[in-house]
């Protein structure tokens, strides 16, 4: 027998285009459950995008199966519908108050059915980490039968430098591929702001544009036997000649209820700035190196830091602060942004150590003292303050006061990059309002676009005076901006309610719009939900700031149910199917830990290699635990463990979970397209890695690291590293590192010569 590196998954980490994973497996297996059809309907306008995905899976075995449906949501998306078809019956999800949902969920479980429960926004990091992944158990999937699954979500569309990107996360993570027997995509993009340069950026999707005007694009595709190897993405730009025009969208459905308010959305594409900002900048980067940042959050923050530092100009100055329970400065004072100094700083960061606590106040205090004119304080953190001031009600006012105490010229613009699903946005967002920018990157998001947009704003200033004025004031209520600081080239927008039909006047900067607020208009059906989400966000912020109050909670629950989206106070119950995390199995080692509901009085684990282990209940932790040794001949891979759970009434529940044995780091073999390069030239990197590899990164001295992506045609992961134009000629190495989901790493260095 051997002690093993074992990882348990209750929920697969594998998240992408909706996949249905056989219940006893960790990864999709088309030999068991194949994806027959996928249809994606995309409706986008200036309000955002609605995506409806319908998928049909086929059970290719002679047994009834259960499966885990997993869908990776974009960061700001909200699920508005989920349904499973049971034969001809569509079983749709409903929004319920969280407590009620949990009660029903338990009742259904006692009837030996598996209800689906989607919750989000838990403060526990283990739970919140998964809030961007929609996951549900789907049972039964009849032998040789099919199962139809539908999911609909809404998301905002960001505009940066007059460009908008619409990405649907269909690319499989973990460097695997998923195929569908047939794929349909229909897309309709409507915009009141004139659009141009509509472009498909994902080349593997043969999208055909069927209609295109300045305000409308229609496109579609239908293709058999399609392999998802990249996200679906399109981008477009807004016509610079038609910027600074205020557009108003309205919606009202007040049939039978004259008190029902109407909704409006005002938006305007700001003209791009014509003057380049060349003034030297003083940039202080604060990197959170506390324990809560371990793994992806730290790596993303480091990546942001590296990108930030490498984007500095020689005339700029910088410093780096690494903080946790302690605060460490790279240099005592701001230092010139030369390449050697930047490399030194990055090496220094890598030599820092994680510590348990987070003293955000102390770090900010040191950061504020570092700044000079045209200063930027760039905070890379999850905001989980544990030492010093830690509550938003004390930390945020303290920061505002400390910032205001500085001479006006030395007040740094506060750029905050919040990382991780559990980021304390209630602390970080208000800080960024001090003439800064807030961005939040969650675990399931492709970070590139957001990171680029975030860093691109360093050196730029938000457009002054961008605020919405409405008239008559007493006919409008509850107006919320949908962004913090409007920059040139972006599209600031506001949503609000109007009380009565009539004339409404709107103005932003010099742009004015006078529209009829209709008595009934169903033209923009997404508007009420967009407004409700903004209202709920404001209420949640108020609760964070001032504590819970009954009225706010009741309103959140009411809005959530009425407009169908999940909040921290409600749950999405897709009864009577599917399952979400009533039991938690923690990763890391050959210790099996099961969290059950209180009615369970015994848990026994039956391992595939014959070991039967009753688990011990640890009352302090409210968890069942045992550990085991796997036989020496048990190969690396996914293995089942069956759990028998008995409740007080003697009812026995059987659950099958899987654990992964990864006793070897992933293998990686890398190649470059040639051996010698000139400065500024791209280096094409091709890597062949074990199936277990989760990420593959190529690094070259002085260059931004590049994440290699799976390419079906080359049957390898590929990417391109651009050699910095100022890199001294000589012999270098491209280091290619593969990491598996257990965070095992292995790397290979490939030499290359750089010529002038």
């Amino acid at each position, binding site marked *: 027998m051997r*002690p093993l590196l074992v990882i348990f998954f209750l929920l697969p980490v594998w998240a992408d285009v909706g996949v249905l994973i056989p219940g006893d497996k960790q990864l999709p297996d088309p030999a068991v459950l194949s994806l027959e059809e996928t249809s994606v309907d995309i409706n986008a306008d200036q309000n955002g995008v609605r995506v409806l995905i319908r998928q049909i899976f086929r059970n290719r075995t002679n047994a009834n199966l259960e499966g885990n449906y997993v869908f990776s949501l974009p960061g700001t998306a909200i699920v508005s519908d989920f349904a499973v078809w049971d034969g001809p019956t569509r079983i749709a999800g409903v929004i319920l108050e969280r407590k009620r949902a949990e009660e029903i969920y338990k009742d259904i479980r006692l009837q030996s059915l598996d209800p689906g429960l989607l919750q989000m926004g838990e403060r526990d990091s283990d739970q919140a980490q998964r809030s961007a992944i929609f996951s549900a158990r789907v049972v039964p999937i009849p032998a040789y039968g099919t199962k139809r699954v539908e999911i609909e979500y809404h998301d905002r569309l960001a505009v940066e430098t007059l460009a908008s990107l619409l990405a649907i996360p269909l690319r499989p993570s973990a460097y695997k591929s998923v195929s569908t027997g047939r794929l349909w995509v229909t897309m309709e993009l409507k915009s009141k702001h004139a659009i141009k340069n509509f472009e498909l950026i994902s080349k593997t999707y043969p999208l055909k544009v069927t209609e295109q005007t300045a305000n409308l694009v229609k496109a579609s595709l239908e293709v058999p036997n399609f392999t998802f190897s990249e996200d679906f993405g399109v981008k477009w730009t807004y016509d610079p000649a038609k910027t600074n025009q205020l557009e108003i969208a309205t919606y009202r459905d007040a049939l039978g209820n004259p008190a029902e308010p109407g909704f409006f959305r005002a938006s305007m594409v700001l003209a791009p700035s014509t003057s380049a900002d060349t003034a030297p900048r003083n940039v202080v980067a604060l990197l959170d190196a506390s*324990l809560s940042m371990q793994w992806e959050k730290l*790596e993303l923050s480091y990546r942001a830091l590296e990108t930030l530092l490498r984007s500095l100009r020689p005339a700029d100055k910088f410093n780096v602060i690494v903080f946790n329970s302690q605060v460490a400065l790279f240099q005592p004072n701001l230092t010139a942004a030369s390449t050697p100094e930047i490399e030194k700083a990055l090496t220094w960061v890598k030599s820092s150590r994680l510590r348990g*606590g987070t003293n955000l106040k102390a770090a900010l205090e040191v950061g504020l003292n570092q700044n000079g004119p045209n200063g930027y304080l760039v905070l890379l953190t999850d905001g989980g303050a544990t030492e010093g001031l830690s509550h938003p009600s004390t930390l945020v006012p303290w920061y505002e006061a400390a910032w205001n105490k500085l001479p006006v010229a030395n007040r740094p613009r506060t750029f905050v990059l919040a990382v991780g699903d559990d980021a304390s946005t209630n602390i970080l967002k208000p800080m960024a309002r001090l003439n800064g920018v807030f961005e939040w990157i969650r675990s399931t998001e492709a970070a590139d676009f957001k990171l680029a947009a975030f860093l691109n704003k360093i050196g730029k200033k938000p457009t002054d005076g961008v605020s919405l004025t409405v008239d008559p004031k007493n006919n409008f209520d509850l107006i919320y901006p949908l962004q913090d600081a409007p920059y040139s080239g972006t599209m600031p927008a506001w949503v609000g309610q109007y009380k009565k039909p009539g004339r409404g006047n709107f103005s932003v900067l010099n742009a004015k719009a006078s529209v009829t607020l209709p008595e009934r208009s169903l033209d923009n059906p997404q508007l009420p939900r967009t407004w409700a989400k903004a209202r709920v966000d404001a209420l949640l912020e108020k609760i964070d700031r001032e504590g819970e109050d009954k009225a706010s909670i009741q309103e959140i629950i009411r809005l959530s149910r009425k407009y169908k989206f999940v909040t921290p106070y409600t749950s999405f119950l897709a009864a009577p199917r599917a399952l979400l995390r009533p039991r938690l199995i923690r990763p890391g*080692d050959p210790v099996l830990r099961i969290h059950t509901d209180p009615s369970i009085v015994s848990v*026994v684990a039956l391992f595939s290699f*014959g070991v*039967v282990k009753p688990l011990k209940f640890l009352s302090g932790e409210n968890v069942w635990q045992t550990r085991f040794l796997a036989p020496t001949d048990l190969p690396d891979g996914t293995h089942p463990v069956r759990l028998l759970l008995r409740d007080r009434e003697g009812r026995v529940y059987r659950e099958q979970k899987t654990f992964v044995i990864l006793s070897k780091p992933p293998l990686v073999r890398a190649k470059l397209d040639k051996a010698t390069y000139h400065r500024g030239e791209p280096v094409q990197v091709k890597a062949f890695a074990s199936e277990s590899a989760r990420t593959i990164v190529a690094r070259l001295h002085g260059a931004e690291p590049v994440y290699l992506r799976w390419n079906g045609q080359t049957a390898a992961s590929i990417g391109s590293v651009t050699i910095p134009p100022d890199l001294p000629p000589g012999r270098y190495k491209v280091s290619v590192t593969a990491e598996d989901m*257990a965070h095992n790493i292995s790397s290979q260095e490939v030499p290359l010569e750089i010529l002038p």
Partner: protein
Amino acid sequence: MVRKIIPIVGGIVALAAAYIWWRTEQSIQTSKQQIRNENQIQFTLKPWIAASSSGFEPISAAATFLDAANFSGKLYVASSNSLLEYTASPLALNRSFRAGLELPSAPITALAVGPALYGTGERLYVATNGEGILIFDGQSFVHLRPEQAPMRSITALASTGLSGLLLGTKEAGVFRFDGHGLSWLHPNLQKLKVTALAGDIADLWIGTRDKGVGHFLAGQLSFITEAEGLPDSQVLSLAIAQQAVYAGTPSGVGLFRGGKFDRVVAPGFFARSLAIHSGGLWIGTLEEGIINVPLNGRVQTIPFAVDVRRIVPVGPDWLAVTRSGIFIMAKSKPELLLKAPGAILADGNISALSFDSSGRLWAGYFDKGLDVIAADFQSATHVETDSVFCINRLLVEPNRQRITVATANGLVFLDSSLRIRQTLLRANGLIANHVTDVVPTETGLALATPSGITFLEPNGTRSLYAFHGLVSNHVYALSREADQLVVGTLGGLSILEKDTVKANLTSANSGLKHNWITAIAFVGKQHYIGSYGGGVVKLNATLQIETFPDMPKDLIINPNAMLVTAKAVYIGTLGRGLGVYNRKQERWRFVEFGLPSPNVTAFAINGDTLYIGTENGLVRVPEKNLEF
């Protein structure tokens, strides 16, 4: 009652012994001949010579009863680490045969009584996990040992009278011993994962771990699985009567009639053992006592004990074998017949050992808490809490008046009166809750975890992992000497100097035989590095790897199972027993004799006595007895 146990008359006379010896020798010779018949299995059969004089002395661990049998007028009870012989009248412990001493170094798994397949009378057959079977005639043991390891892991026995003894194995199917040789019953039975056997050669029922019930009838093998209605494809027990066969599973009992699946009996019950009595069926469960299923009646629960391993007939009586005692099935309720003998240790699966400054031995358990054994070895105190559970390492810190316990649930500090002074978890700054190793540093402690290393210092904790240059996050072993910390991980070795990674060694860039490092110790001027499959190598001061010429290939060293004394380096191996390196002669020797298991997991030294922990008990031996 035991008085009613039918005495088996079988006097051992010198003539019979001589005959048996002759037959044994014949069998050995036969097995050494070229195997012509492909159904034949190579084996050795020879008298077992006890290792009682080797100087190894077991520290008694709580017996976990597994099975019982009435043989030769006595009651024999098997626990994983010993076979206990009780006289019938009065019922008293007469002799014990301990694994590693009077029996081979392997856990016992099952007992069966059947006719002698050579000689006369009956024999007690004792199955082991790893050493084949022992054949006991009441006086001495003969060891039947298949040559191939998978065939030595016996899980089930069935005596079929003079037709032979059927042996079911963990992964290698079913075969037969007929007194002359071992042979396969049928090619299709060769790879089954057997859990139980019932019936005879002509009509054999086979419980399997993953394929339900196998029915071998007239040379044909068929399976009955969940698809046919069996409540579970993992079969735990079988019972057979004239008209019916019962198959116990974790989810109920399957009833077969006329060779066909009929229905599920007692659905939901974890049927670890079965017995058919005159009034119906008894089901021995894991946690719910015994379930009685009358022939025409409702299921009745008889709650009296947990984990009923076997229900065996003894004369007119039935005995229920539970973990901690044996009960006789009386009319109203089971009555305790005998309790497992008292023991010092609460468990046998040792994972860590250490002596404190007052001479007490601390023994940590793999999936339990720990025992603190008094210096006179007459008593022990058990400590088990949410955090003192699943122990990995015990570090005595006399200067701090504490014992540091590295566990799967955190780092725990206990004082000498066994009070928990502090428990540290991730919430307290550890990089992970699971602490696999701990070593003192100049200012505090260094902790190994599956997520990296944490340094525990007076001013708090600080941690590093692969992000900071560690060769892998999964750290299993640490060794510190001066400023150098050698870190053993799943992916190789990291050498830290003043907490900064100075070098990473893997099998790709060094002489390491295996990347998965499990144990490290500083010996003289170098570190000895144990790995999972690469034996032990040396890391010298210039960070070069040196090998031992006499180190066996593919040797697996258990986590942190390495101890250095002035005379020797001891390593605990997986399946190869105790490795002893004579530092003077610079040679290795491997010892299994005297150990309750060849899976050696922990060491401690007290004066000149070495304490050796295994997965199946703890033994001590004077260090001089291991010299060579």
